């Protein structure tokens, strides 16, 4: 399903068990004058959602006491979602919705293809048909607008 900012915020708010997944380019890529990671943190704060930080992104979250975040290898995330007997300190219950931002396209494609039973939402600026929900193809300017509007809606 191709998302609009309104739908994105609505879907995130509707799902009680959710997890934000910050990819490896979250900490370096700037969109609309701020890092993608800042958007992730804004979403986390507004919705009280934990963040699984893949790649090296956790280093930039280590001093942020406002959000609950943990370094997770993509493989650990997949294990957490798929296998029995996994003990995850970040969030004991398996999420029903995973929101991805800041991924190389192939990594995002791998993750959404591997995750079995959960709903996936990719908010990067490429459309992912294998995700349950995806932002459409967007230019950087449109992407910033999309993310900002989503965050505005999450705050309402």
């Amino acid at each position, binding site marked *: 399903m191709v998302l609009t900012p309104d739908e994105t915020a609505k879907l995130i708010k509707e799902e009680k068990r959710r997890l934000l997944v910050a*990819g*490896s*380019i979250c900490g370096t*890529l700037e969109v609309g004058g701020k890092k993608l990671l800042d958007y992730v943190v804004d979403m986390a704060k507004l919705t009280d959602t934990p963040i699984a*930080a*893949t*790649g*090296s992104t*956790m*280093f930039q*979250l*280590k*001093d942020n006491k406002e959000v609950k975040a*943990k*370094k997770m*290898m*993509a*493989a650990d995330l*997949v*294990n957490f979602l*798929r*296998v*029995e*007997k*996994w*003990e995850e*300190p970040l969030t004991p219950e398996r999420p029903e919705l995973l929101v991805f931002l800041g991924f*190389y*396209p*192939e*990594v995002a*494609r*791998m*993750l959404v*293809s*591997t995750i079995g039973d959960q709903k996936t939402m990719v908010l990067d*600026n*490429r459309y992912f048909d*294998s995700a349950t929900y995806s932002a459409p*193809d*967007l*230019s*950087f*300017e449109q*992407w910033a607008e999309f993310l900002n509007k989503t965050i505005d809606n999450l705050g309402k």
Partner: protein
Amino acid sequence: MGDDQKKVIAKVGGTEVDVSTAVRDIRGIEDLVKESVETTWSENLVNQIKVWLTPFTHASDIAEWDKILLERFPPLYTATVKECQDCFQGPCDLEKGKGACGINLETFQAKLSLQSACKGLAAHLSTCKELLEHCIKEFGEDRELKWGKTLVYGLMNVNILISNSPKTLREVREALTYAEGQLSELLSAANVGRESNIISLESKALHAGSVLLFAMELTEWLKFSMFDFTWAPDKELLEIPAYPEPITEAGLGSVDRSKPVIVFIGNDFLPAWMAVKYMKDNGLEDKIEVGGIGAVGHDMIRFHEQAKLLISATKANKVLRLGLGDVVVVSDPCCRVDALEEAARTDSKVIATSLNATYGLDDRSLDPVDEIVGDLEKDTLAVLISDQKKAGEVAVRLVQKMKAKRKDSYLLTTEEIKGYASKCTDCDACFRACPASLVSGKVLKAAKEGDLTGLADICDKSTYCGKCEDACAEGIPLMDMFLAANPQAIEADNFRMRAGRGAITSNEIRDIAITMFSMPSAVAILGCGNYPGAASEVAQMAKEFVESNYSVSVAGCIAQDVASYKDPKTGKTLYETYPALYNPRCLTNCGGCSAQALTSTAPFYKLGYIAFRNPYKSAFAQEADFIYRFAAAVVIWGPATDLSYAVAAAHARAGIPVIVGPYGSKFKRYLLGNKYDRSKWWMVHGNKGYRKETAPAPEHLLIPVETVDEVIALVPKLSFTLQEMETARQGKFDLYLNAYKKRFGEWPDDWQLFVSKDMELPVTKKPKMLRLLSDEHGWEIDKKRGRILKVKHRDGRLMEVGDFVAEYGFQSGQYITCLDRLVYQIRKDRQ
């Protein structure tokens, strides 16, 4: 085989063993089996376990071992292909249900996995076969092969599957016939209506990997034996730390462009060999530059000191766009399929040499050299010459004429860059298409205003795959712009490295057998170098491991990237800084693509025999069971082809954890362990035969990662073994916790799973570790004295340390195994 089989007696010390039941079917190979047992089995061993060999190993011969691995590390698939089109009953959308033949989505993924591994095997097998046929034509099939002064046990990846290493070219042909038979058997199992069990399919995929290393090792040996490639086993131990000298010039800036330049691409070194020979015969060595891209480049620097190693094969387009080669010679595999089109942009002439990659050209091997050179000098863009000798001569003669006909530079001017940038509509389709998320409208907007820094930054990081250009509706030549924005970076891409050295010697293995209990582990960095970002990141990874006392070996295109970091103080590369031994704190480059067979499995099979008298001839499961208990890791960085897929499979099957990145996600199948599922982590007491729970080590067998930081943090953890001396465990904890903290700002959440007593805790971290064990994990700690009083077992019990150690895991020195058949019985001769 019937019960009336005649006895075949092997004598091991004072013990006679009937080996007629030691293999599935001994008919025709009686002498081989007898010799294998007599030369590699100890008297102790033949009296303690059943002698069992698998000469000319089939996948099913190792299924017992594969099943153990695949049960502990179940295959996990990234099902990006969900529609099966393998037969004419389909296509079948397997996401919706079973296919017409009854296959489901997961089994289909396992089938794709086997197909990938087979394609990887086929790619190299054909290269090896082509080389062998050339050798037989040149030297005759009775030609004996030389080993080198110190290669005592022969070819280990070969011995492990067929019991013996060939001694003549005829025997190499026989060995390859075995490999070809295996490929055909494996590929046929991936056909419609054949193998239907996921574990069996994966077992076969792993086998394709083992056979690939077999073929690669044969190739390496032919290169030394027939073409005098650099080969460490031909040197004395004291010469090896500096062998070969780190004097090879590498990088695009190493090419003297005032001379005519021939660039070779692919994995067949024979055209380059022939060209160099022609140059030497005609006194042209100093007048012509020869450079190699990818595997051929790594080979060229092993037989011709003046050859330049340019770049990894996946980035070949950078060289083509630069127009570096006046003449480009392409073989196969690992060549761009649009090489002709790309070369034409810069007026380079192309000579294709492989019948596997003809580019639709007619083979002109029978035409006179003068005629071919004449045609190429005029309008002909490319020719196919499958006769490598002729191809080499044509390349040398043509390049001398082409130099004057080409421009000095094909780079865009700044004005041209700005002009193209102004066509950008800021749609960012380039960003969405770029696998590395590098280029965007923002960069082009700056370039339009004359700020080329964004483009210049991409010059070094791009893989030049061209997807950005393809996505651009305005037809902007983005790759040309990256290159033109940073000519200084191209000039600065100039460093010295060691050429590959071939196999690890028995003397080095003897020495590492002594140090292996105190070093963190042996790490091999392999792969194609297909990754975005600076090559120096890979060098930093190697540096980190070497300086942390790992034994580091490299092979494949990535070996060049390891040289791309220069110490700011000394100006030296890692190859110039560290000894080239297979020892802790050393860095050894085994060579190009085929040398990936030499870095890990071969030395470890040898280690098994030298240190523990573990038989290595047709005893794969026995050797893998040994390796699985020791510390080793393989990092495959930037895989590009199915060959890497099979290389990864081979190492995983040998019990060596494999980390794949940063595009590990494309690997389609991983072998991940679940550290929290206690039922998965056990070993068998090697003398008493009972199972005990152990720590989850190694945690994964094949794991994808995204960043170099993740590799550096993961390798120490995957190096934890089940029987570690306390000092070694302390060192690994130190490396693991430091790496995690430095790179992710926090400690990992699983270190406590590997603690069983205080002696294992590194002194500098002990107070914090004890506090966390007490506060967060429920252990009973004497905080005043800093001691563990009671351990919290994973089942929740609080236990005395001694009781816990007796119940959980095994002590260092105890023989343990995964295979019940390898449990020692009381010696028959002493009963």
